[in-house]
């Protein structure tokens, strides 16, 4: 994008997308599917953070929770209530899966906010896999629970009969667009914010603009902190909405 390798060392150099490069952790060389890369490192750190918050933090099983245990319980209660409220009581068995997605996204997003870090959720490859998993499992659950009745999701019985085929076409298109919007929303939000911060950071090299640049970075960072949580929330709540459609296809 803004990368201009030729003008290296001359004035402002923008490499806002370099932070998204996947590279091997140990030595150089091609990136195979099994190579230990910065992706591995930051995903591993998200697992570590999860273990710290959800397992180590709650290890005392205190009746009056400590701060760490409160965070774990808060996360549990937040997602559990969301699943129950949005997808219904019969969606509670799927709670661990949604919790897995939510915790991974929220932890990756926040780890990605650390300076010099790599944001795993800013890559379409990552979010698309999650979105496809959600899409496929929701579709399978829909057919498994309702049989052919799941197709009534597309046949809106409350609309006039003449409109129904047109509506069905729109519904089907929107259904198949779900994984695309689901994945690009998250990756796009994460990528855009980080790239903008990097652009502002490049401006900090000019003494005259640097105070403004620092202020802009701070403001963007605050916004990104908000976005990090909101996008994880949005991803999880949309999963719940899709799950609700699968469990109760009738409008």
């Amino acid at each position, binding site marked *: 994008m803004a990368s201009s390798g030729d003008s290296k060392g001359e004035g402002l150099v923008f490499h806002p997308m370099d932070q998204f490069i996947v590279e091997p952790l140990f030595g*150089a060389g091609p990136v195979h599917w099994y190579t230990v890369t910065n992706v591995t490192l930051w995903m591993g750190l998200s697992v570590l953070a999860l273990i710290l918050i959800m397992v180590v933090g709650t290890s005392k099983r205190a009746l009056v929770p400590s701060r760490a245990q409160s965070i774990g319980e808060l996360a549990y209660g937040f997602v559990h209530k969301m699943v129950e409220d949005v997808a219904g009581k019969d969606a509670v068995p799927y709670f*661990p899966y949604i919790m897995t997605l939510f915790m991974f996204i929220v932890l990756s997003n926040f780890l990605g906010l650390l300076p010099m870090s790599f944001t795993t959720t800013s890559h379409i490859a990552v979010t698309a896999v*999650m979105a496809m998993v959600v899409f496929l499992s929701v579709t399978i659950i829909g057919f498994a629970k309702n049989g052919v009745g799941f197709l009534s999701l597309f046949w809106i019985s409350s609309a006039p009969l003449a409109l129904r085929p047109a509506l069905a076409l729109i519904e089907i298109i929107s259904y198949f667009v779900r994984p695309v919007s689901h994945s690009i929303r998250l990756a796009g939000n994460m990528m855009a914010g980080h790239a903008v911060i990097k652009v502002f950071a490049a401006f900090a090299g000019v003494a005259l603009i640097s105070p403004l640049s620092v202020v802009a970075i701070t403001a963007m960072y605050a916004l990104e902190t908000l976005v990090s949580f909101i996008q994880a929330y949005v991803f999880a709540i949309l999963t719940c909405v899709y799950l609700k459609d699968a469990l109760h296809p009738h409008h």
Partner: protein
Amino acid sequence: MATKTDVSMSTCIDSYGSAIGMPQLCTDWASNQIFWLVVTLVAIFFVLSRLALPRISAVISERQGTITNDLAAAENLKSEAVQAEEAYKKALEDARLEASKIIESAKSEIKQELDVAIKKADADIAVKASASEEAIAVIRKDALANVKLVAKDITSELVKVLGGKVDSKSLTSVINAKMKG
């Protein structure tokens, strides 16, 4: 990142180690990311479903149970306190009744004793009063006799001083007549 010069490393990185276009669209890395994502998600899922979630839900339900129990215990204690207060009030009432009874009986006892004492005192007083009256009568008689004597003496002395002669018989009769009048 900008120090890498290995051009053959990837088709998505230029000779200066910078990204060409969006690294997000580089398909060379997709398999790596997908592999590690699956590993990570499976790890997170097992950590959550085997360790974290059962533990947290147990803690939360235990807390809920404790709160419910404590509330019930508080309710019991409250009713006990109300009962205790009632018992206390009843005891107080009983004690008050008992006290008034005791006071009543003590009062009547004292009154009886007082009556007896008053009667006795009255009798004593009556006896003493009659004795005193007798004594007073004797004294009065004596006094009357003495008055006559004294009057006689004084009169005779007065008459003597005035230069008269005393007729003791007429003097006695005059004094007797004056004393009667």
